[in-house]
């Protein structure tokens, strides 16, 4: 029927959902499940034997009961992980409150700056702490000159906890700040009218309501802390943790079985933490997203503003200190253990400039492709999960979260062994790198998209369908635009952390696909630290600019992206 208002699209069968569903299942099975299940399975196989039913054993796990080094590594991982998580929360919580609830200038800049620790190559940051706080460190010498007091050595647990908390607190800040900003301001006003002081409101209303977001972000920090290799390997001194133990087993013995067993224990730790989180959230099913467009009134008292500014800028200063030091080192000519360099030069930059373009382009392409894949896959699976369309939702959740939890080294080895020979050979291509990246980061997008989609009224999709839109059209025109800000925020995080990914890359890259993080690593290996610092600084600045541009493009202040 040809009415003046046009005709409905032809009513062929909508292949959209089916095609996407199959695509997702194939990708999930082939690239998420297979390599990692393969790798983890090795944990149950005796070292030296081929995987077969006859060689199944729990011997690899037995070492956790017999070898002191294993027990110590496990204990160290747990307690430094918890300590770093608590420290990160302690740093980030007041900051999140200040940015969301106190009238301070430059809030957007503060939020943007908190991304810096996340985007810098990890091992460079650890070296920076040695330069700052080591026995001959800049700060150590300065403090000693000022007060005569000598700082205790940075190696060992204190240094590790300090570096980890300053690297990962941004996760807590961004997520909790988003929760504060999105909360219904009338609730706090109601408490005010009932007679509560600001402190009372903070303690009885604001914090309890932000608890789910706080707990979720602390879980992320814990997972990252116990999976971190770079910091403990450089600052740990003699303290072993599970990731350094894995490294030891793989690169020292090529004992993949022992390494997988350790990785499996790492996963168990994470599951335990996730279980704790779920238990904590069991009675909380409330949504605090308000129905008003009025933003919360911010505190304007001088005391609050002073506290807010001092705390936020103080934290930012401490957090970007490593990057500042690296930048300093990149300009240093001679720096033999004195407080500051003796002379400066641009020579390091001149030397690395010519080698930069290839790796930068590669990093951008690989990180970009992986981010795109994460966004597509993550959004589709998030939709399926949030709309409860799958009966095996929990299996999908686990499959996606698992690789996020595993150290990069394990993922790298798993991919290498799974795709070097056999029916599907991918080594030497860019695809294997992109897939490994995708595997490690898709959980980010999945989680943030799932939360957002759950808050979008399903009736909007019904309305679109009644108007005549196919499922794909509804996704494209209704759901994706609404979920876009959250997806974009996740994509920015994914992209910027992928630029500096090293532990899986070093096992999978081919000469054609050398990334910027490999360039830095190879310079560090060759002892050319000043040049490594130069590339590191360039990478940090470039990524920061990209992040700012992306959030500006989305038309929002950085601070609002994480609501």
């Amino acid at each position: 029927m040809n009415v003046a208002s046009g005709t409905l699209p032809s009513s062929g069968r909508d292949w959209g959902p089916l095609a996407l569903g199959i695509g997702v299942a194939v990708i999930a099975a082939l690239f998420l499940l297979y390599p990692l299940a393969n790798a983890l399975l090795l944990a149950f196989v005796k070292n030296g034997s081929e995987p077969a039913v006859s060689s199944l054993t729990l011997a690899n796990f037995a070492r956790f009961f017999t070898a002191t080094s294993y027990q110590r590594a496990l204990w160290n991982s747990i307690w430094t992980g918890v300590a770093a998580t608590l420290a990160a929360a302690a740093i980030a919580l007041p900051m999140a409150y200040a940015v969301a609830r106190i009238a301070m200038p430059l809030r957007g800049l503060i939020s943007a700056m908190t991304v810096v620790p996340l985007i810098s190559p990890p091992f460079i940051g650890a070296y920076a702490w040695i330069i700052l706080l080591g026995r001959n460190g800049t700060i150590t010498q300065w403090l000693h000159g000022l007060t005569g007091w000598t700082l205790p050595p940075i190696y060992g647990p204190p240094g590790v906890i300090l570096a980890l908390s300053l690297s990962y607190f941004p996760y807590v800040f961004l997520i909790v700040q988003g929760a504060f900003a999105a909360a219904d301001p009338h609730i706090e006003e109601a408490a005010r009218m009932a007679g509560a002081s600001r402190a009372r409101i903070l303690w009885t209303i604001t914090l309890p309501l932000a608890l789910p977001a706080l707990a979720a972000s602390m879980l992320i920090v814990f997972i990252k802390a116990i999976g971190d290799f770079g910091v403990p390997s450089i600052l740990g001194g003699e303290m072993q943790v599970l990731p350094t133990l894995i490294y030891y087993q793989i690169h020292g013995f090529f004992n993949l079985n022992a390494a997988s067993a350790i990785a499996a224990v790492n996963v168990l730790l994470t599951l335990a933490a996730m279980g704790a989180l779920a238990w904590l959230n069991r009675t909380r099913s409330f949504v605090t997203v308000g129905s008003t467009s009025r933003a919360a009134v911010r505190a304007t008292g001088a005391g609050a503003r002073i506290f807010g500014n001092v705390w936020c800028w103080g934290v930012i200063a401490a957090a970007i200190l490593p990057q500042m030091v690296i930048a300093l080192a990149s300009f240093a000519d001679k720096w033999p253990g004195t407080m500051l360099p003796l002379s400066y030069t641009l020579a390091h930059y001149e030397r690395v400039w010519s080698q930069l373009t290839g790796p930068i382009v590669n990093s951008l392409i690989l990180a970009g492709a992986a981010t795109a894949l994460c966004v597509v896959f993550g959004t589709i699976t998030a939709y399926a999960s949030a709309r409860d369309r799958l009966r095996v939702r929990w299996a999908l959740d686990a499959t996606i979260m698992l690789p996020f939890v595993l150290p990069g080294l394990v993922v790298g080895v798993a991919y290498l062994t799974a795709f070097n020979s056999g029916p599907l050979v991918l080594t030497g291509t860019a695809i294997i790198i992109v897939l490994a990246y995708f595997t490690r980061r898709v959980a980010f997008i999945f989680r943030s998209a799932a939360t957002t989609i759950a808050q979008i009224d399903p009736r909007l999709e019904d309305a679109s369908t009644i108007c005549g839109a196919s499922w794909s059209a509804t996704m494209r025109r209704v759901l994706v635009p609404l979920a876009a800000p959250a997806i974009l925020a996740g994509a920015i995080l994914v992209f910027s952390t992928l630029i500096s990914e090293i532990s899986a890359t070093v096992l999978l890259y081919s000469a054609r696909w050398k990334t910027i993080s490999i360039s830095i690593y190879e310079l560090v290996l060759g002892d050319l630290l000043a040049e490594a610092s130069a590339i590191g600084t360039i990478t940090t600045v470039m990524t920061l600019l990209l992040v700012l541009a992306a959030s500006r493009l989305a038309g929002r202040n950085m601070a609002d992206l994480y609501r």
Partner: protein
Amino acid sequence: MSGAALSVRNLTKEFTTGDVTVKAVDDVSFDVAGGEFFTMLGPSGCGKTTTLRMIAGLERATSGAIMQDGRDFMATPPQRRNIGMVFQSYALFPHLTIFENVAYGLRLRGLGTSEIERNVARILALLQLEPYANRHPSALSGGQQQRVSIARALVYEPTMLLLDEPLANLDAKLRVLMREEIRALQRRLGITTLYVTHDQEEATAVSDRVAVFNRGRLVQHGTPSEIYGAPQSLFVADFIGRANFLPVRLAIPGNPTGGAMLGNGAALQPRRCVRLDASEAEHLERADDAIVMVRPEHLSLDARAGDIACRVNRVQLLGGLIRYTVHSDASPDPVTVETTRPLTGIGEGAESFLRVHPDDAVLYHR
């Protein structure tokens, strides 16, 4: 419960973005007597909610004074003003039970456990909420949540009760029911109540006095019948109830008491004359132009003779009321006539005559 008296003088609130300053509330003054039910009414963006929030202390005034029983309110922070407030979104604490929600304010006042329990139980009983004491807000319906919100505001016996469009999120029938409940409660407790709404029927139905706001200014305040019967501006006339506006010309230019002439030449001598202020007067083109406002129930239709010839366009049956919409050359817009008795012989399409009762008409002039 006591009823405190409120006094607002020259209250102004300005918002500045960039180099543009907007007056959300512009030099508003009014008094509320102790125990009075006072409603601030107006379209969205008129400044009524901002005024309420300044009285609550949630917004800071740019200038002006707010006094309660002679005491300067503005020096007191909101949490010490001892006011109860009900929000449009209910704003219940989602992580607390209904009991804890209501007890929140009492706990802050240092009451003992048994006293708290007693007071909460009493107010819950008053609002028929006892069965829900241990549930969480998400388990309750909108109407129940609203009642919890009221209970929480009243339990600590505040000096004033402020309500910000409390019924806007409820369905029509529930709205009518709840407004009567609120009214009855207020009467019973005798508490000074400030109510904000955009629904004029709601305002006139329950209030002792109504203040009408437009674009940040308080344009008129008085009892519902004063507002309805003697609106001091075209805006108020139009906003409250239904109004017909007939363009007229003054018989003697400059002298409103000299009578007016309708478009078809018929003469009219409205008993009441109101001078328009500059912003409304500028719509009148010529020096002797004026407007006559007459309510639908003060017009009658006569098949044989009257002041204005007209043609009946539409007849609507609205329960006990019959509304005739007619067209005439006395006014560019259709005119509405309402009556409780059906008029025989006057159906759609019929030619008829309008009769204007001068005692009920109001002449608006510059």
